[in-house]
């Protein structure tokens, strides 16, 4: 589904990604872990099409298309979803209006009929409940005045509504208390399964107790330096990132 080969990118003169290769197949959950500044969030942003980065080498293929050639909205239409680390507040645009516009654009791209307001409200009802969102948030401006937890739940709620093929979660666990973390994980687990790939970008192992990954990759200084199964996350939790640094130093 997603094939990243030797991806390199920089911001202004600073190299951030120095050759990342990663393949995600349908049905798999990959966790990308790493210390602050390792390039995790940059990778997530580049996949979604954020303009602030310059891709200097490598390729990304998504569902058979050259992802890097697509505009952000085309990526969304192709089935890619980024849950933002810092969801943006948009005063004056209601959550409902925004999400219906998003869903209808994505549906149009898939060749499906647009939903009327009534059909849309029906479509989202169960998802509002699953994410335990206060229904009043729907008629409020997008993320405006939402608590940190509400913003993150709103991201996963949007993901559930848009039903993407590939979900990229950028530090969705940061700033969440344990209850909110469980709700978020529950939402993600609902989307898990055949035909859908999930990438969980996180600094901590905590979220991975609830969203159990098939693969764990450690990103350091713009490279994937170690990959393994879910037990790698526990090892990192126990020993910290320094044990990998030591391993790397010993190998040099």
């Amino acid at each position, binding site marked *: 589904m997603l094939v990243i080969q030797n991806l390199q990118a920089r911001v202004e003169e600073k190299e951030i990604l120095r050759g990342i290769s990663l393949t995600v197949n349908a049905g798999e959950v990959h966790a990308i872990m790493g210390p602050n500044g390792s390039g995790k969030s940059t990778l997530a942003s580049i996949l*979604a099409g954020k303009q602030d980065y310059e891709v200097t080498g490598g390729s990304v293929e998504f569902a058979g298309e050259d992802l890097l050639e697509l505009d952000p909205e085309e990526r969304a239409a192709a089935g890619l979803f980024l849950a933002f680390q810092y969801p943006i507040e948009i005063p004056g*645009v209601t959550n409902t209006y925004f999400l219906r516009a998003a869903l209808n654009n994505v549906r149009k791209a898939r060749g499906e009929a647009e939903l009327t307001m009534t059909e849309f409200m029906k479509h989202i009802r169960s998802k509002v409940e699953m994410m335990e969102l206060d229904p009043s948030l729907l008629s409020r*401006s997008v993320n405006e005045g939402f608590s940190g937890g509400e913003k993150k739940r709103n991201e996963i709620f949007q993901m559930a509504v848009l039903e993407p093929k590939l979900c990229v979660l950028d530090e969705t666990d940061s700033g969440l208390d344990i209850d909110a973390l469980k709700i978020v994980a529950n939402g993600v687990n609902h989307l898990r399964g055949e035909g859908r790939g999930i990438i969980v970008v996180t600094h901590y192992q905590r979220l991975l107790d609830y969203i159990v990954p098939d693969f764990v990759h450690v990103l350091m200084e713009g490279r994937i330096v170690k990959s393994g199964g879910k037990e790698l996350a526990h090892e990192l939790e126990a020993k910290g990132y320094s044990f990998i640094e030591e391993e790397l130093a010993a190998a040099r």
Partner: protein
Amino acid sequence: MTTDLKAKADAFTEIFDSAHAVLNTLADGRFADVRERGIHKFREYGVPTHRDEEFKYLNLRHLNESAFKIAYGATVSRGDLSHPIVGTDAITLAFVNGQYAPELSSADTLPDGVYVGPFDELPFEVDQAFEKQFGRVANLVSKLGTTNDERFTYLNQAFFADIAVVFVPENVIVERPIHILNVSTANLGAFVAAPRAFAYFSANSQAKLIESFIGLTGDYLNVPVTEVVLESGAIVEHVRVQDETLAATHIGTQAVHQDASSSYTAFNVNFGGQVYRNDLNVWLNGSGTETRLDGVNVGTADQVMDNHTRIDHAFPHCNSFEVYKSVLRDQAQGIFNGKIFVYEDAQKTDAKQTNQALLLSATAQMNSKPQLEIFADDVKCTHGATIGQLQKDALFYLQARGIPKAQAESLLVYAFANDVLARISNEAVRQALETRLFDKLEVA
């Protein structure tokens, strides 16, 4: 230069000489002296130049080059009025080119004592209120400020024809909005018109006032003056919609007098005009008042939109809150000047002013000047002005959810402006203006 200035004023004097005899047949000549004083005062000043502080950024040179005649009658049918605000349910008092138009006005049964009509033989109580305040509300004499400039109030005073009069007696609540509709159509050449309105809200009354300026055809100069009086405890929401033709010049004065514990909310919504200017002056004449002044300007092509507001906090414990927003595209130019005077006795004043502009092209421009003059020591006064482009991360966020860039941009612009309209309490009025905003921004 002096001769130039004189020539300018002389052009208007000529119009006056040819028109005042006819104008003075109105209302049995009651306003003959008022008009004479008006033209006399306007002649002292003439058409302003950029050297006049209050017109520093507003170029009005074209007023010297146009050959205006006095406003003439025109026939407008309801079918000609497609503007969404005209379709909203209201007690309507209509004028065409400054003249009363009964055929466009509504014939309603009004609550006891309420008067909505042209100046004519006014009921006793209404006539008393009129006599007491007409012409005084708009007057800045003896108020603070070293650059007070009333020349266009004088020009209106010289040329006004019919007067829209609204009167609500004590303790009366008028549920339906009262709409003063001013239609302009210059199908027979450029004219100058001076719509005049007087609205008086007695103690503890409540009403919603809509005032609209709708242009149909041609080039003209509109110099309206509206005076609004709120006695103590009155609650008024005043929506002023300016949608003149894109060839027209509109220079308005909106003067408000608030007695103690009254509440005045104004929405100034501007879509039209080649050149638009409005001076909104609020005089707070007692304690415990609430004032909210909100504005939205949407300028495209080479439109110029100039809002001057002033609030005179003359008594203690008064609150004023002001948000003006502008969306400017192409070569459009916006101007904002917000004066807040806090007089020596006006302790515990709480005043907040915000001015925001969104520039959608490299050639659009905004000049913003907050002007706070505070002579009391225990007050809270803040102001803020921001001029910027669309927020990039918001745009990316919408795109990342599948909304195409062009649609995402319009949506953000619409949201920016609509934030103000969303506070209008009458749903039909709000929706009419949202429709017009949608249309003007060409939101997909």
